[in-house]
């Protein structure tokens, strides 16, 4: 237990006044000196803080998705019969974790035999994370004695952040196979779509008998036709097309991959033929079944940001202007402005571009896809919201405006954009997008 020097000034002042009071015979000075000396004395005899305490850490979710907040709760229990008047806890968090709510530190007091809790929220990028030791500083009531402990709390010590499944709505460009993607066409299905005049040959089980009873006219119920679609997810894996999160947390690349993975698996489960392409040249043909699923997983797992991409203008450019990044780039990537990829996309195939939209290049490419007759959607994590910071810098605000302009430009060309605000779950934005399409 280390003594803390907080009262030197009062002690010196008290002694000085005592000496002065005695020397000049001013009794009154002694009373002021006595106050200082007695307070210093009382503070000095204050009991040292107890070391009988227990700390437990729990997490609201040990397998969160990237960007999903996780609540960490610390429960502090005083096992002694004396109060813990000053307990200062600091979590040693891995650098890539960002605290988005409250604080990973706390200063508290715990009554004898009592307990208290402290909660805070973090968000994490992809990966496995191990909590470090908790630094616990204890002081006595007068704050004249203090010590620091490094404690490993009971409970959860690690967690994993990984991609999981969710549904991604797709647009009305389908192929002639039955699937689970709803269309704006009536036909066989389960969800009510409309009624129409009876035509000879309509199945009896689709005649609206209630309508017939009321009006005496025959009408046929149509259900929302569910068709399968061919979808190719294009993952923007250009290093230049990604940014770090403002205030820390998962990068835009992590979130883009997460969004793409959720969409792909859902698409597969809906019976859609699903493929993937990356701008670094990886390609998986649209398909269904386990083989396609494993190929898609391979692409997602091996994806990393690259310096050179297919949508760069051409190889020839780099020979004229030597460029460090270009020289380090993968020579297998044949940059042709993305033309080869465009030709490779299946006819009638939908394209979902997954990108944070931090540059104009990807917007141009989306327009190009659209002009080749593909229904294009863009799934974009918004990296300009800054979850871990209170206010945005001027530069960040400019970035926000420019991204908004890109989204407006895309929407102006009838390209649906799912603008994923990181403060809300991805699913919410996807559902909004689906509602927009339905209207």
């Amino acid at each position, binding site marked *: 237990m280390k003594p803390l*020097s907080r009262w030197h000034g009062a002690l010196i002042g008290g002694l000085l006044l005592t000496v002065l009071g005695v020397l000049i015979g001013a009794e*009154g000075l002694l009373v*002021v000196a006595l106050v200082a000396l007695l*307070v210093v004395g*009382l503070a000095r005899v204050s009991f040292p803080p107890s070391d009988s305490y227990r700390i437990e850490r729990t997490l609201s979710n040990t397998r969160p998705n990237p960007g999903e907040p996780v609540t960490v709760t610390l429960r502090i229990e005083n096992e002694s019969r004396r109060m813990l008047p000053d307990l*200062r806890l600091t979590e040693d968090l891995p650098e890539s974790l960002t605290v988005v709510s409250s604080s990973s530190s706390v200063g508290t007091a715990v009554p004898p035999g009592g307990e208290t809790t402290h909660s805070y929220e973090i968000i994490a990028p992809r990966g496995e994370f191990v909590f470090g030791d908790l630094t616990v500083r204890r002081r006595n*009531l007068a704050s004249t004695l203090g010590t620091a402990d490094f404690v490993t709390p009971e409970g959860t010590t690690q967690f994993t952040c990984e991609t999981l499944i969710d549904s991604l709505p797709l647009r009305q460009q389908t192929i002639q196979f039955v699937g689970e993607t709803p269309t704006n066409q009536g036909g066989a299905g389960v969800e009510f779509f409309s009624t129409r005049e009876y035509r000879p040959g309509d199945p009896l089980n689709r005649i609206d008998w209630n309508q017939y009873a009321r009006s005496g006219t025959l009408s046929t119920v149509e259900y929302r036709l569910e068709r399968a679609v061919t979808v190719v997810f294009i993952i923007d894996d250009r290093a230049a097309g990604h940014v770090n999160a403002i205030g820390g947390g998962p990068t835009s690349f992590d979130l883009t991959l997460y969004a793409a993975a959720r969409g792909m698996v859902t698409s597969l489960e809906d019976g859609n033929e699903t493929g993937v392409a990356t701008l670094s040249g990886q390609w998986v043909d649209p398909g269904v079944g386990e083989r396609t699923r494993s190929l898609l997983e391979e692409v997602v797992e091996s994806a990393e940001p690259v310096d050179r991409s297919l949508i760069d203008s051409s190889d020839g450019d780099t020979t004229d202007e030597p460029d460090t990044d270009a020289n380090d780039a993968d020579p297998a990537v044949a940059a042709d402005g993305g033309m080869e990829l465009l030709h490779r996309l299946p006819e009638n195939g939908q394209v979902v571009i997954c990108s944070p939209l931090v540059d104009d290049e990807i917007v141009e490419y989306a327009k190009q896809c659209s002009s080749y007759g593909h229904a294009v959607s863009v799934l974009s994590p918004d990296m300009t919201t800054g979850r871990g910071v209170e206010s945005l810098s001027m530069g960040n605000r400019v970035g926000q405006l420019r991204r908004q302009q890109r989204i407006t430009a895309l929407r102006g060309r009838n390209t649906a954009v799912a603008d994923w605000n990181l403060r809300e779950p991805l699913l919410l934005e996807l559902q909004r997008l689906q509602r927009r399409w339905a209207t």
Partner: protein
Amino acid sequence: MSIQFPSQQSSDPNSTVDRLRTGLLSAASSTMAILRARFYSLRFGDWFSILLTLGVVAVAGTAFVGMTGALLAVGGGLTLALTLVMTNSSNPLVTSLGVAVSILTGALAAAVVGFVAYILLQTGFSGLFAGLGVVSLVIASTGAFLGPIRSISRLAIARSTLLLTVGIVGVAGLVGVLVAPRAELRAQATEAGVATGQTVVSTLLSVDPMHALSTFFVLLAAALFFLGRIMVRLPVERLLPADRRSSAVAAIGWVQRWRVTLVRGSLVVAIVTGMALLLDATVPPDEGAAWLLEYTQLLRTDQMATVVPAPVGGFLVAVVSSQLLRAGLYAVVTGSIGVLLAFRLLGALRQGLAWTLAKLAAPLAGGIVASIPFGLLAGRFEVIELATDAAPAGTPPELVEFLETVPSFVAGAVVVGALLGLAIATLLALGVLATVIVLPANTGSTALASIGLFGVAVAAVVVDLPLLAVGVAAAALCVWDVGEFGATLRTELPGRPPTLRAETVHASGSLLYCSAGAVGAWLLYRLAVPQIQPPAAEIAAFGLLGSLGVAALLALLVRQS
């Protein structure tokens, strides 16, 4: 439809007014944002310290020097804190407003000094302590109002002083512009300026036995301080070969440590001898204070030689009373200030000429703009008559005559310049206090508030208010305890973690044992102290031992820090 070109737009007076309005609104909103951020950053402990300090200042001040004195002290503390904060703002508009606010600081400082002088002349020996009590109230209020800022750096004080000096230059420029076109006034102003300059020089070089000892040590401390600042700036070690650098750095470090100690020592000697000489000059030699004056008069240089043994005494008096040495020390101080200003100007120019001009223009404009309302008010409220009546005896008659002759607006501007000078003197006093006491970096405001309250307690005892003294002393210790606790929480737990529970428990504990200390001290004082009547020899022995103990504690403290 007509097209408006940029040149046309700029000449439109409305657009200039709009721009000015926009700039002012922007300055106001940014200031409000900063204030809001500062207030939100305050924790329970900060609020507790601030409110307790202000509460005690209000109660003790009213009991001590009445409502007017208390209000004066709180107002002085508030304007001093505002001056310090606003003149250190990065926004030029806020800086210029800070210069305007400093005029109020100067006015309140003048009022406090006048009040203290009045008490001193009315009540003699105890009046000095009552005066110190008022000054302590101002210090405590300043500490409380600086609570949201927390640290009080000498650099910030120096920056404020520099800006106010530039503000004075602005006011002088305004006076010059108003006076220069009129030949008669111009001649009169020249005469007044020369006479004032002569008076200032002769006052500075004066070796009157009444103040020679104290002013010499002030001058010595100033010269050592500024020399040290230059030493810090000069890259001496870089001029040496690599193998000698470490020894040079060690030597410079050693010199700097001793220089700092000498500066503090000189200031302490100057303050103690200054107070003693002030007592000697102002306290009437009645029966109550006669014993004290026997000692204080020994500090006069004409008496000192008779007390201190022959070779040392003569040498000491010769050094302290040497005008040549004083002139040399002044030369060192002014030269050092000049070099430091040149360094600062070069540093500023590195950031761009426009930036430098904006920084210089802000306090100039602040001084000039603030002079206008003061100048107008000066005529209406006959400030010049009041100022000339209250002028000290040594004021050159040419200056008084000039002030009486010039238009009231100009005279008002001169008064504004004088008030700015008083504000600078107040800031310098704060700087001296920060140098002598060594305010902690992260708890400067708390320390200032606590020291101020402790000073009030000491003064209350001397003016025979022991119960009030006990309460204020306990409050001073409580303010320090809770404020310092909050500062360590802030250091150890950065950001804004929840700490309310720990702070509440600590504040409750602090209130408990400070109250217990106060009650215990009061009981001991009432019951035990009257029983103790030690003989003179024992008092001397106690005094010696106590002084040694304090010296040992001080040495320990300096070593630990």
